[in-house]
């Protein structure tokens, strides 16, 4: 039976509210009403990602995500895509270390169709799963890997740095795309077992956001999902806990066909969901985000040794997060020279902390990013699922920006001092292979012709 909570806007939530419910089979449901536009977003997070994969089967969670679009009990072949798009909706699925999500954004009057489709595959995927779709999607995913990682310069940097940052055997040592050998080795029976283990209503959170009637929506959810049996076959992921500091610098030099030298590094940072992680986010923003960051000012504007320099944050809940440094060199600049400058800036920041103005800028940037994310029904639905699955409380999504604004400059300094140090990073250096004998008759590259989005899924 659905159980409701009242919808009262919390302080700092920008007036957004969400209610939580749970079906008898364990499916958690989060609803959020917003009638500004006649659209509704459906988002379903399964609490399974590449961290649940076992040795020899990397990439299985993502390959399986593809199979979820190949039909189910009442949906033929590509029917899931055809029906949603034919109803004026958009859809996709993605797989990360920690979860797999599926989402549809629909015109309001087609919401029930999306719920029916998600329930059909949650309850009856195995009725349709066959060898033919397995073989086909294996090839598609291998081409996805080639397109996004193997056939682009620096394409495997993420994979290499992840492997350097988390030890062999750690659940986050490999990335969701998996290896070609493991993709080749996966069998139909692996896929079936994966579904039986992880795809259950009690291992998922469903959020519906937008122009909805909550009572009617809950009734539909009960009707379509309510009879799907729960089960407890799931194995918890291997423990991802690691010491707060790596304790040494790990380093890999890659000589490859890349257009310029590059310095990349991953710093071990606090787990997502903690105040310390928000503080680290602000530190990385001051240091390496945007055109007024310390690294941009130092390397791109003043030293002119880099064409681009910045920090990113990979937030992770079940293992230490990673702070991601990416510097592409300018002209003949040497990596050692850049590395010394980066270390100098990080050390200065760890000693002095951000200025008041830098704090204001970083908080304003992160606030706008949150407004962007919560400003669409699909973005809000995804965040509600994220906080429900990873932290047990969807309401935290609506107050996240308040927590970022609450962090002090001293906490930001302390976060940098604790984590942004040479003995807490994996370093990846790219050195281009010497140009061979090719008579370079070519002229400059084109900048803006990438005319359209990549393919779905």
């Amino acid at each position: 039976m659905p159980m409701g909570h009242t919808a009262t806007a919390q302080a700092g939530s920008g007036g957004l509210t969400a209610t939580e419910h749970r079906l008898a089979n364990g499916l958690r449901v989060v609803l959020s009403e917003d009638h500004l536009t006649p659209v509704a977003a459906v988002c379903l997070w399964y609490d399974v990602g590449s961290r649940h994969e076992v040795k020899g089967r990397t990439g299985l969670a993502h390959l399986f995500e593809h199979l979820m679009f190949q039909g189910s009990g009442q949906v033929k072949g590509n029917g899931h895509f055809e029906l949603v798009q034919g109803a004026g909706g958009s859809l996709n699925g993605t797989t990360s270390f920690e979860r797999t999500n599926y989402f549809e954004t629909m015109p309001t009057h087609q919401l029930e169709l999306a719920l029916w489709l998600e329930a059909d595959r949650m309850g009856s995927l195995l009725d349709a799963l066959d060898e033919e779709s397995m073989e086909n999607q294996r090839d598609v995913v291998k081409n996805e890997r080639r397109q996004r990682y193997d056939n682009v310069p620096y394409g495997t940097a993420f994979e290499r740095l992840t492997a350097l940052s988390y030890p062999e055997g750690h659940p986050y040592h490999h990335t969701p795309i998996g290896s070609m050998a493991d993709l080749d080795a996966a069998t139909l029976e692996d896929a079936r077992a994966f579904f039986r283990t992880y795809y259950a209503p009690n291992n998922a959170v469903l959020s519906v956001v937008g122009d909805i009637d909550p009572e009617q929506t809950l009734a539909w959810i009960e009707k379509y999902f309510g009879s799907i049996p729960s089960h407890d076959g799931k194995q918890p992921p291997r423990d991802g806990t690691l010491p707060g500091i790596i304790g040494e610098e790990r380093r890999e030099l890659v000589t490859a066909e890349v257009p310029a030298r590059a310095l990349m590094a991953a710093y071990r940072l606090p787990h997502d969901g903690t105040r310390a992680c928000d503080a680290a986010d602000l530190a990385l923003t001051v240091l390496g985000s945007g055109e007024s960051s310390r690294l941009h000012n130092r390397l791109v504007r003043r030293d002119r040794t880099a064409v681009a320099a910045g920090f990113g944050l990979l937030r992770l809940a079940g293992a230490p997060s990673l702070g991601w440094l990416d510097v592409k060199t300018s002209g003949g600049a040497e990596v050692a020279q850049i590395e010394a400058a980066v270390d100098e800036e990080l050390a200065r920041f760890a000693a002095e902390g951000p200025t008041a103005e830098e704090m204001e800028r970083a908080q304003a940037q992160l606030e706008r990013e949150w407004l962007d994310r919560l400003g669409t029904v699909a973005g809000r639905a995804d965040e509600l699922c994220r906080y429900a699955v990873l932290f047990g409380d969807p309401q935290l999504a609506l107050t996240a920006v308040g927590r970022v604004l609450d962090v002090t400059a001293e906490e930001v300094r302390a976060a940098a001092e604790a984590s942004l140090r040479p003995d807490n990073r994996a370093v990846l250096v790219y050195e281009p292979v010497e140009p061979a004998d090719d008579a370079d008759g070519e002229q400059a590259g084109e900048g803006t012709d990438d005319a359209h989005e990549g393919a779905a899924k």
Partner: protein
Amino acid sequence: MEFHPQPTPGTARPWAFPEPERGALPNGLTVLRCHRPGQQVVAVEIFLDAPLEAEPEGLDGVATIMSRALSEGTDKHSAEEFAAELERCGATLDAHADHPGIRVSLEVPASRLAKALGLVAEALRAPAFAESEIERLVGNRLDEIPHERANPSRRAAKQLSKELFPADARMSRPRLGTEETVRRIDAAAVRAFFEAHVRPSTATAVVVGDLTGIDLDALLAETLGDWSGDAGQPRPVPPITADDTGRVVIVDRPGAVQTQLLIGRIGADRHERVWPAQVLGTYCLGGTLTSRLDRVLREEKGYTYGVRAFAQVLRSSGPDSGGAAMLAISGSVDTESTGPALDDLWKVLRTLAAEGLTDAERETAVQNLVGVAPLKFETAASVAATLADQVEQHLPDDYQAHLYARLAETGTVEATAAVVNAFPVDRLVTVLVGDASQIEEPVRALGIGEVSVVPG
């Protein structure tokens, strides 16, 4: 589980593409505004009538360097200060030069619009164009070029432009310039381009978002209203022509694990009556994973992660003005499957020409293209971008709103004719970025045009 029949849809709530309010400031700047309740991040798009065509001979890339230099300091702020002040507003500012002109795009929380718009106005009114900053931007641009050349899809796009357009046309050359031309750009050239082509009387600002409590007239008057300039002269626009003789160019990348495909020509733009039918037919050919191309190449054969067909307006300034859109098919396939994938692709095109689209396909496409509009235009930025595209292409402000009605009225026969005309099998230029030693022979055997190989 208990199965239930597929539900039937409820009643659609009406939705229409927002109608902007059009006006002008005393300095001649055209302003389009659009209130979107709930959109806390306001989007401002400014279109400057400074097309690439206007770049002086031998200075390709000056429009790009100028647009980037707009945010590198003013009479009141140094480059570092300007970037810092903008980011303090929680704003992002991008400027981008393309064939039709320059677009300056600001996104900022509504609460800080006033300050951010003040900074943008300052950049347009009194950019510093300091020599040392221009030098840095030129160096930075030179550094970017090898990265673009290394990227297979950008390399393919560059080659296709070179193949399609006459050598003396600006469109045949890289939008952002070549090493040779960028190297020649200095502060004087940037300022000269700015003075010749940037003025309020030929610019348009589009402001979209939740404008509750914002006195936009007062705000515009004290920001963009303070920008001045003369009237400017209308510039002749040369018609776009292209050589679409069917042929194949392989850009050699020894050892590449995939081949990047870009197959294109030029065709109708939004001013032509056929546009809605072309949109519909192109969607049926390659708009999504269940369109004809991916149904075979991806979902049956597994040759690719996805292949898309699309039409993208290059430049367009009115009916019969010689504007055009790039019509293209793009994607990547594993090296070994290159020959078979192209063979299948041509079979899909031939079958389409021989048998046409089905009514069911046309119906699904209409439902999708019309139905996704409220989703697509949920954010202020997406509405502002479309309104600015209309301005840039000299289309009426209600163009997009009417497009949906025209799509719904387009029949299967018209959509078929449009897509078959758009992608005739013997008038397509195919660029393949891949390993020539492996793909050249299989591609030659297909007989889809003369094959040549150029270095990567």
